[in-house]
């Protein structure tokens, strides 16, 4: 076991895979700069594999697709998830579709890295969690690791995967440290993790809602309520069986996700369980998610947006009590103090 931060895990994953496979290249604006996880890579791998990148997201995403169809494995780092929108056509109309359109003649092995800067006072244009949008697009695998070990193991798997993988990183987790297995640590794409076992309520938590759910679980355990925390880790393919098995046990489901409510990942998970696990359900399915409003700049407001241990615990406890869920969970009137991971902002790259 080694201890490293989520950010180091990203660096190590890329480093190990670039050493293993000369077809892996990195496309990233300012990727050679000392603040970036790929700093120093140019010295080891040369300027061709770590090229200087103009501010041309659409262009270099298209270039990555052309490179991927002809034998390379680009890692495209957008540094801020919102910048994917500039390249949306290339991601959605081409990377996700070319293999299908061309009858399997080519594959498009690209990893699109997208750090999500929400909860960092960068306002609406830099704070999105766009994975639900891409979950609606067939042909893309989608990963949101919540621990350093999973970040390492899933990024390595993503780089080796022959399909396009979109790799979302909650930036507030970048500074979090954790144990990572030694050796060539790979985590398979498509397998959920049971982050904590429990009997009473299943909490499916995504990204940095996982540590929040674990804190909620610890708090409720003292009161005799057992939360089972499932971390899907990959959203496409989604490990439905793991979620259904947990709900079969608990009969109650809370989904905690920092993305927007409407058509979010939480909606999909709720729909699957309402469709395939209806017989297990003893209570309404509750979403603890961001409301349908943009992340505001003001930290006093933004901290009301995302799932907190308090919101998750309150939802789970209400289910067990048999109380009806709030129709549209408004943020708490008093600002929750989300100190967790706030210090990781020190590691951020300005944007």
């Amino acid at each position, binding site marked *: 076991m080694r201890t490293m931060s989520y950010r180091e895990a990203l660096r190590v994953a890329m480093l190990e895979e670039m050493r293993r496979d000369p077809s892996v290249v990195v496309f990233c604006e300012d990727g050679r700069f000392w603040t970036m996880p790929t700093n120093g890579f140019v010295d080891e791998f040369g300027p061709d594999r770590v090229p200087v990148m*103009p501010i041309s997201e659409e262009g270099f995403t298209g270039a990555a697709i052309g490179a991927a169809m002809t034998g390379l494995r680009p890692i495209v780092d957008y540094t801020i998830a919102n910048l994917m929108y500039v390249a949306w056509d290339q991601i959605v109309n081409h990377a996700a579709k070319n293999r299908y359109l061309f009858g399997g003649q080519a594959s498009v092995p690209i990893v699109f890295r997208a750090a999500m800067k929400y909860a960092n006072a960068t306002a609406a244009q830099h704070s999105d969690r766009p994975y639900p949008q891409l979950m609606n697009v067939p042909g893309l695998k989608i990963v949101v690791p919540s621990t350093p070990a999973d970040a390492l193991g899933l990024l390595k798997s993503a780089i080796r995967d022959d399909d396009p993988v979109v790799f979302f990183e909650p930036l507030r987790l970048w500074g979090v440290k954790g144990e990572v297995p030694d050796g060539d640590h790979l985590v398979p794409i498509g397998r959920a993790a049971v982050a904590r076992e429990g009997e009473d309520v299943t909490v499916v938590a995504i990204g940095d809602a996982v540590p929040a759910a674990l804190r909620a679980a610890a708090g409720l355990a003292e009161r005799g309520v057992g939360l089972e925390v499932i971390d899907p880790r990959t959203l496409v393919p989604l490990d439905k069986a793991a979620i259904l098995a947990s709900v079969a046990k608990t009969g109650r489901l809370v989904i905690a996700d920092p993305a927007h409510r409407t058509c979010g990942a939480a909606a999909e998970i709720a729909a699957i369980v309402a469709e395939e696990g209806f017989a297990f359900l003893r209570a309404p399915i509750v979403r603890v998610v961001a409301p349908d409003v943009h992340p505001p700049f003001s930290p006093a407001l933004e901290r009301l947006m995302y799932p907190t241990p308090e919101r998750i615990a309150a939802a789970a406890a209400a289910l067990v009590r048999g109380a009806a869920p709030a129709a549209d969970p408004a943020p708490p009137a008093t600002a929750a103090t989300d100190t967790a991971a706030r210090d990781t902002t020190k590691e951020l790259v300005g944007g």
Partner: protein
Amino acid sequence: MNRERDLEALRRMLRIRRFEEAAMDIVRKGQGIAGSVHVCIGQEAAVVGSCLALRADDYMVGYHRSHGHPIAKGAALGPLMAELMGRRTGVCHGKGGSMHLADFSVGSLGETAIVGAGIPQAVGAAYSARVRGTDQVALAFFGDGAANIGSFHEGLNLAAAWGLGAVFVCENNLYAMSTALADTMASESVAARAAAYRMPGVIVDGQDVDAVYDVVSAAVERGRAGGGPTLVEARTYRYRDHAEYGNMDLSHRPAEEVEHWRSRDPVELLHARLLADGISETELAALAETVAEEVRAAVRFAKQSPQPAPEELFEDLWATPIETTPAMPAPPMPSPPGPVPVAAVPAGGAR
């Protein structure tokens, strides 16, 4: 002028024309080509002259006016026609159709229905060749309308900044659908835009296959030798409407304009030149008949090919199979909590 090459040019230009005439015939008769079909009749010299300047292992990316490019690059006609008819034997298994022909076996990396989007993909193929240490070049075809889209700018800039072996060939047929280029672009030519990237920009007579060959060959050699990219603008004309499907009617084009271009038909010009060069009418007629029979055979092949089976809908999407926890058995259906107030419906559903 090179006799062998010119005969090959004539062969490929005739293949394109006869192939597209056959496709138009099938569309007209309702014999099984659905969707949009954009023919390039009138533009064959620009397409073939460019592709003849490439090696078999060089890359080529096309666009929606789409059949000429793979044919000129050397693709077999049967699977192309089968693709237009949506058959399982189609070069893309019926997944792509007319706008998405691709034949990776001859370096044809695919046509795209998104104007301009193929340009950066070709840049990526050229980049890939450099990283893999080959001297392959990549050629991108696009229309005049594409010169106004961001991908053009970003793709050309990337290729220039990285000094890649990319060749950009604009088939300027003066119109984008119904819109004259002069109404959407203030500069006097597409080629003039090359200066913005400090690359050579060359205008060539797109009806003269030798002229196109010479200009593109010089660009290819420059690119292959590490001299960077070139923008070529081939002035040409399409005889038909924007598409065979959808009632586009370009009869508003001035009659003199149509006449002018028809008087410089690229096939006739080449035919006349070969005659002048001493090739006999008989030899040319034999060549034409060989091509006609190739096309008839392609149509027979396509029409006799089976439709794809329903399960093929799901094929060609993923390169790597998806690994998840084994599915659990479906839960038993609960007996409904209240009385069911309706008559039972016979199994098999209703009409």
